[in-house]
């Protein structure tokens, strides 16, 4: 048995939950109000990171290493996603000379 870390003793886990919720909502707000595809990607990264922080805090509070391994996998998937996504954005820019996602809604109809 080891001593509890200072954070686990002092900070209730609900504070982490509230913080991660707020960060997730900021990312969601960004996805909804911005129309630049690159900024949308950054806001998605923000949302992914808030979920990562929540997983890490639960892993620490319950002392379960699986949660942190999962965060590692999420980071790997996010890196792959960004590589492909930025390639797609560059290709779109080549074709229509803008990254405004409003002009890309033609697939809808």
């Amino acid at each position: 048995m080891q001593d509890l870390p200072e954070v686990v003793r002092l900070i209730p886990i609900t504070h982490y939950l509230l913080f991660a919720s707020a960060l997730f909502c900021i990312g969601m707000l960004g996805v909804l109000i911005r129309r630049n595809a690159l900024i949308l990607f950054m806001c998605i990264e923000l949302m992914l990171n808030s979920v990562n922080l929540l997983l890490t805090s639960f892993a620490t509070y319950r002392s379960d290493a699986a949660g942190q391994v999962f965060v590692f996998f999420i980071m790997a998937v996010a890196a792959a996603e960004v590589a492909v996504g930025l390639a797609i954005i560059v290709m779109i820019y080549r074709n229509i000379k803008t990254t405004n996602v409003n002009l890309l809604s033609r697939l809808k109809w």
Partner: protein
Amino acid sequence: MAEKLFYFLTFLALASGLMVVVSRNPVHSVLYLILTFFSLSGHYILLNAQFLAAVNIIVYAGAIMVLFLFVIMFLNMRTHNEPMAPIWAQLAAVVSAGLVLMVLVAATKASSPALEAVADTDSFDSQIGLVQTLGQTLFSQYLIPFELTSILFLVAIVGAVYLGRREPGERNSF
């Protein structure tokens, strides 16, 4: 000490996250996002997850954000024609994001008694975030997912190269 650090890092992350959303210049957005990632790494260190803190800095702040900056400078984005949603859509976005936040906060409040009753001191292991423990878990219990990640990266590389290649007959496209 840990408490003060927690609230400082939380404030820093939320403020810079908000600045990512509201700043008109994409380069400023990237820099604020890097600040957010650094404060999240501070949170990981507070949570005794040193390995994740290091990986977060190296992968996110180091690799991914450099890729973003590279693409922004590559595409030569102008600030004055930065596209935004119309004003009614922005209002609706603020309202819906606030509603989602309200639902999440209410759910947290409702379930907080069950969540607080953790920290079983007998079986608590504060060393799970260290490289040694995490490496042993990763390479024994999660070996196959770890190897599949490398295939995922291979697919991502092939996809990025395929998408980024010059199409036949296309010249001087920028």
